[in-house]
C-alpha cells in the first residue's frame, strides 16, 4: 500500500507523542498493579513479591461487606437503568422527528453534563428530607441515585443500534400479524440484544466506580468499595487498597473482553 506523505504516521513527532501518551495512560496503572504485589507494609517501599495483600483484602470483613454492597447496587442500578434507557431509546428513535426531540436528548443525557458534585449535593438535600418523612434509610437511595446517572451510559449504545436498524423488519413483523408487543419481543429485542448487553455492562462499571454521589448519599455503614478505599486514605494506608484496585481493574477488563467476544460471535 502506498504510504502517503500526509499519512499521520509520517508526521514528525508522531512516535514521540504516541509513546508519551501511552506511558501517561498506562504507567500509573502498571505501577498500581506491580505495587499490589508488594510484600511491604508501606505503599511506596518495595519489599519483595507477595500476594499477602490480596489475601488480607479478601479476609477483611469491611472489604467483603463493601464489595458485596457495591455489587448489589451496581446490578440493580444497571438493570433498572438499562430498562429505562431501552424505553427512552425506543421512544426517541421510533418516532418522526418533532420539535423538542433535541431537548429530550439533552434531558436524558443530563447526568453527563451537570457536574456530579451538584447532583450529589442536590440528592443529599432531597434524600435527607425523604428519610425524615418515611423513616426508610436502606440501600434504595443509592440504587435510585446510581440508576439516574447510569441511564445515559446505557442509552448511548442502545440508541445507536436502534438508529442503524432497518425499520422494514419491524414493518414486516407487523405485516405478519405481530402486535406491537410481539414485534418488540420477537424482532426488535433479539436484534437489539448486543446493544442492551453493552448498555448494561457500561452502566454496571460506571455504578461500581462511583465515589462522589455515593459519598454524599450513603448513610452510616453503607460504604461501597470506592468509598471504603477513600476512607482508608485518612488512616494508615497499606498496599491492601492497591490489591483491591487491581481486582477492580481485572474485573472491568474481563467485562470488556467478554462483551467483545459475545459481539464477535454474533457477526
Amino acid at each position, binding site marked *: 500500500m502506498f504510504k502517503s506523505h500526509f499519512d499521520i504516521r509520517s508526521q514528525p513527532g508522531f512516535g514521540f507523542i504516541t509513546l508519551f501518551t501511552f506511558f501517561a495512560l498506562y504507567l500509573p496503572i502498571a505501577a498500581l498493579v506491580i505495587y499490589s504485589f508488594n510484600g511491604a507494609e508501606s505503599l511506596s517501599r518495595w519489599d519483595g513479591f507477595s500476594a499477602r495483600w490480596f489475601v488480607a483484602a479478601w479476609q477483611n470483613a469491611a472489604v467483603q461487606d463493601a464489595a458485596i454492597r457495591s455489587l448489589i447496587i451496581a446490578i440493580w442500578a444497571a438493570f433498572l437503568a438499562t430498562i429505562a434507557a431501552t424505553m427512552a431509546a425506543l421512544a426517541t428513535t421510533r418516532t418522526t422527528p418533532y420539535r423538542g426531540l433535541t431537548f429530550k436528548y439533552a434531558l436524558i443525557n443530563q447526568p453527563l453534563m451537570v457536574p456530579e458534585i451538584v447532583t450529589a449535593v442536590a440528592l443529599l438535600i432531597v434524600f435527607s428530607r425523604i428519610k425524615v418523612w418515611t423513616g426508610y434509610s436502606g440501600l434504595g437511595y443509592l440504587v435510585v441515585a446510581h440508576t439516574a446517572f447510569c441511564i445515559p451510559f446505557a442509552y448511548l449504545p442502545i440508541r445507536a443500534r436502534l438508529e442503524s436498524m432497518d425499520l422494514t423488519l419491524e414493518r*414486516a*413483523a*407487523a405485516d*405478519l400479524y*405481530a402486535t406491537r408487543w*410481539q414485534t418488540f419481543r*420477537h424482532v426488535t429485542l433479539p436484534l437489539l440484544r448486543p446493544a442492551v448487553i453493552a448498555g448494561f455492562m457500561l452502566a454496571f462499571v460506571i455504578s461500581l466506580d462511583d465515589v462522589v454521589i455515593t459519598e454524599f448519599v450513603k448513610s452510616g455503614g453503607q460504604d461501597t468499595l470506592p468509598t471504603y478505599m477513600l476512607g482508608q486514605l485518612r488512616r494508615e494506608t497499606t498496599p491492601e487498597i492497591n490489591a483491591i484496585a487491581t481486582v477492580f481493574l481485572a474485573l472491568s477488563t474481563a467485562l470488556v473482553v467478554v462483551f467483545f467476544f459475545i459481539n464477535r460471535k454474533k457477526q
Partner: protein
Amino acid sequence: MTETRTTAAHGGAIGMHGIKKWFGNFQAVDDVTLDIRSNEFFTLLGPSGCGKTTLLRMIAGFELPTEGQVLLDGVDISSLLPNQRPVNTVFQNYALFPHLTVAENIGFGLKMLGKPRSEIDSVVNDMLKLVHLEGRGGNPVTQLSGGQQQRVALARALAPRPKVLLLDEPLSALDLKLRKSMQMELKRLQTETGITFVFVTHDQEEALTMSDRIAVMSTGTVRQVGSPWDIYDRPAERFVADFIGETNFLEAEVVAVSGDRARVRLSSGAEIPATFPADVTPGGKVTVVIRPEHAQVGAPSPASVLRGIIREIVYLGTDTHFHIRLEDGTTFTVRQQNARSGSCGFSKDEAVGINLSDDVAQILRD
C-alpha cells in the same frame, strides 16, 4: 376474520375509493379509485414517484389515506393496523429476519396468529416445497443467495394464506435471467394459490408478462386500467402509449366517425381507420399512435400510406429497427422481424414507403 384469513378459498377483492394522500405539502396520490378483482394478478405500473408504492402501503396499512377508503371484500379496512389485515407483503429488500432460520421466517406469521406447533410445521414444509427450498428450513437466512432469499420472502408472505399478497418491486434486485424465471414462478404461484396478487413495478415488460390487468400511474393518478392488450394496443393517452413500449405519434385530422371507428387523414394525405377511447368529431385535430411492429417498409409507391427516407438501420438480432424521416419532418420507427437471409434489403438514405397492417391506429385522448 381469523377464520376466513386461514381458510381463504378465494383471493380478496380490493376497492380503493377516492384515495388522496398528502405528505406535508406533497401530494403523492391524487383521487385514485380502483377496483382490484378477486383472484387476479393486478399490477400498478409507473415511473418512480408516481404513487404506486404509496397505494400498496395503504392496502398493507403502513400508510393511512388522507382521504378516501380502502375496502377488502366490501369491508372498510382503512383504519385497521397492518397486523389486523389479512394481507401480506413481499418487500423490495425482502426484509427477512436475520436472527431466524428459513423455517422460522416462514412460520413467523402463523406463530404470531397463535397457531399450534404442528400446524405451523406442516404449513412451513408445504411452503418450502412450493418455493423449491426443501431441506433448507434449518439454514440461517443470511447464508442464502438473493434468489433464495426472494423465495423465502414469498413463502413467508404466503404461509398465513392471506387474501391479498402485495409485492413491492420484488424482482428488481435480481439479475435478468433469475428475474425471468421468477416472473413465471410468480404467475404459477398466483394461479396455484388463488390469492389476489397486487404487484408494483416500473418495468413495463414485467407488467405485460405477468398481469391479468394493469393500472398505469403517473404523478399520483391512474391514467388507464386494462388488460396488457388494452394497455399496449389501446393506449388511452400519450403518457400510457409512451411509457409502454416504443411508439410512433402522428398528427392527424378526423375525417369521419361511425360506430367505434373513425377515419383519420395523416399528413401524407392517406386516410386510415383508427379506434378511439373518447368522443371525437369530424374535422378535429388528433394524435394517433402506431406501434413500430405494425408497419412495414417497402418501395415507395403512390399506394404507400407514408413516405420518407431511412435515417438509421439498427440490427437487434430478432428484428431490425428502421428510423425513417417522413416528408413532414417527423421520425417514424418501423420494426421488422429478421429472416435468416442476412440483409434487410434496404440501406441508409434510401427513399421508402411505409405500409400499415389493418386497423392498427389508435387515437389518443387529449
